[in-house]
């Protein structure tokens, strides 16, 4: 039970840390000054979530690992974030599509996690829910603006939706770890969220005059540490300082 809870909290922490890392790459290079500030804001929300979740994971594990040891000193195969969040920023449309698909899942997810039997998770969820509501609004507005903007932006937004679609199925994956915790009233069952997620996606894409991709093969593997090739590069950059100067205080 403790092992499963540790694994579950780490998944959530890794999702937040890796997406926060990706958003940090934009800072100073966004299409407008307002978006430089906006994407940094969202990135900060994720880093904050990651800190709370890693700290809690460390407590559950009980081996004295803190947020930084869990974030900066685990290897690629030990990370259990979903594949969607590790995808490169690409152009602004890809960043927005990634944010949109993820937030459309996370908002109903956090709402449900507030009812978890685990009080720490419920408290983290209450804060994260408000943040996810903003992330969803921000990204959905951009999907609509870009989809219904110019010919070029429509095409780029459609391409981004198609490119990332294959990674959205993983959000609903239930493995043994998750099944145990769902049965115990600790974790959220993603299956009932599927309908809500599809409705959100369909509503926003149709307002954006974009085509909704066909249901197809869902690439998974992130939860068991089988990542895409981009991921190792992200880690080598993110973990550089702790790897190069082990055991120091910063």
């Amino acid at each position: 039970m403790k092992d499963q809870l540790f694994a579950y909290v780490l998944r959530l922490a890794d999702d937040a840390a890796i997406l926060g890392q990706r958003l940090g790459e934009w800072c100073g290079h966004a299409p407008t000054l307002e978006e430089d500030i906006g994407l940094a804001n969202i990135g900060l929300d994720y880093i904050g979530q990651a800190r709370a979740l890693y700290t809690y994971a460390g407590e559950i594990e009980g081996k004295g690992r803190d947020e930084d040891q869990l974030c900066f000193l685990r290897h690629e195969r030990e990370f259990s974030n979903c594949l969607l969040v590790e995808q490169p920023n690409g152009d602004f449309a890809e960043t927005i599509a990634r944010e949109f698909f993820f937030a459309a899942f996370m908002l109903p997810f956090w709402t449900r996690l507030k009812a978890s039997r685990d009080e720490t998770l419920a408290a983290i969820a209450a804060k994260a829910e408000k943040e996810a509501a903003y992330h969803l609004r921000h990204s959905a507005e951009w999907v609509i603006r870009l989809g219904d903007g110019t010919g070029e932006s429509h095409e780029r937004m459609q391409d981004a939706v198609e490119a990332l679609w294959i990674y959205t199925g993983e959000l609903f994956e239930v493995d043994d770890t998750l099944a145990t915790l769902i049965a115990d009233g600790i974790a959220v069952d993603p299956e009932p969220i599927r309908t809500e997620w599809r409705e959100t996606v369909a509503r926003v894409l149709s307002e954006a005059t974009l085509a909704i991709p066909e249901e197809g093969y869902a690439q998974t593997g992130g939860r068991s540490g089988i990542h895409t090739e981009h991921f190792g590069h992200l880690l080598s950059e993110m973990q550089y300082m702790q790897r190069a100067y082990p055991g120091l205080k910063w």
Partner: protein
Amino acid sequence: MYTQALNTVDTASTVEDAEREAAFQGRIDAEEKIEPNDWMPEAYRKTLVRQISQHAHSEIVGMLPEGNWITRAPTLKRKAALLAKVQDEGGHGLYLYSAAETLGVSREELTEQLLSGKAKYSSIFNYPTLTWADIGAIGWLVDGAAIMNQIPLCRCSFGPYSRAMIRICKEESFHQRQGYELLLTMCRSSEEQKAMVQDALNRWWWPSLMMFGPSDKDSLHSAQSMAWKIKRFTNDELRQKFVDATVPQAHFLGLTIPDEDLKLNEETGHWEYGEIDWSEFARVLKGDGPCNRQRMKARRKAHAEGGWVREAALAYAEKRAARRAAKSAAA
């Protein structure tokens, strides 16, 4: 960040109504704030547009050297603090562009001036951030120098600029304390980290002193800016304040200021410093600093690659307005 007295020569003021100018100067002498719709001499307007836009550009370009370390910050706490700091600098750019816009110049025009190389920004951002200690050094020295320059601007005669400065200065002093605390943590953690901090100080000290602009004896036109209360202290006065405040802080960290001529004058209580290499200052301002080309390239790239996004946002806003108009006409 960050104003820098760059001392471009003002164009001579055109023949203005002498009475109006006298009344304007009277208001300034009485410490009244000048607001955007008030009458003002053309040269006052031009000086302010130049200074505020240079300041705004400096905030924006200044996001790049620090942004260079966001993805490599050593801890999550430091990563969040750095991302928030760089975000603040973007916010400063935004307030300052808005303050400049009240003087009748658009943000697009100002951006164009930056990207074409016509407008200047603070020379300090043309130096590279090579190690994590540089992030602390920038907060401590660069934000520290910015505060010295900008505190007096909170009392600047132009209302929108002075109000923007009050808000900005609060954040800059937070950045400065945060940078110093970062360095203190490193200096206390290990000799290896302390050496990294000393190396950062060695590289950032002199460029920080240059942030205050040319020496008073070479300064072209402080007098008019002083009379207009756009400037309240000379470059050398501000630089001296900065040195006096910073040297004891360096000593507290156990660091050596890279200046063999530095000594405390017991009578005046001021730290006297060695000769600044003004040829380096001139060279960096002219475009031949270590990173001028990379900074401009990064700004131009972000602007060019964001073009389709800005066009889409505009096209969508127009479509939506047209749809609303059609809807209300039908109703």
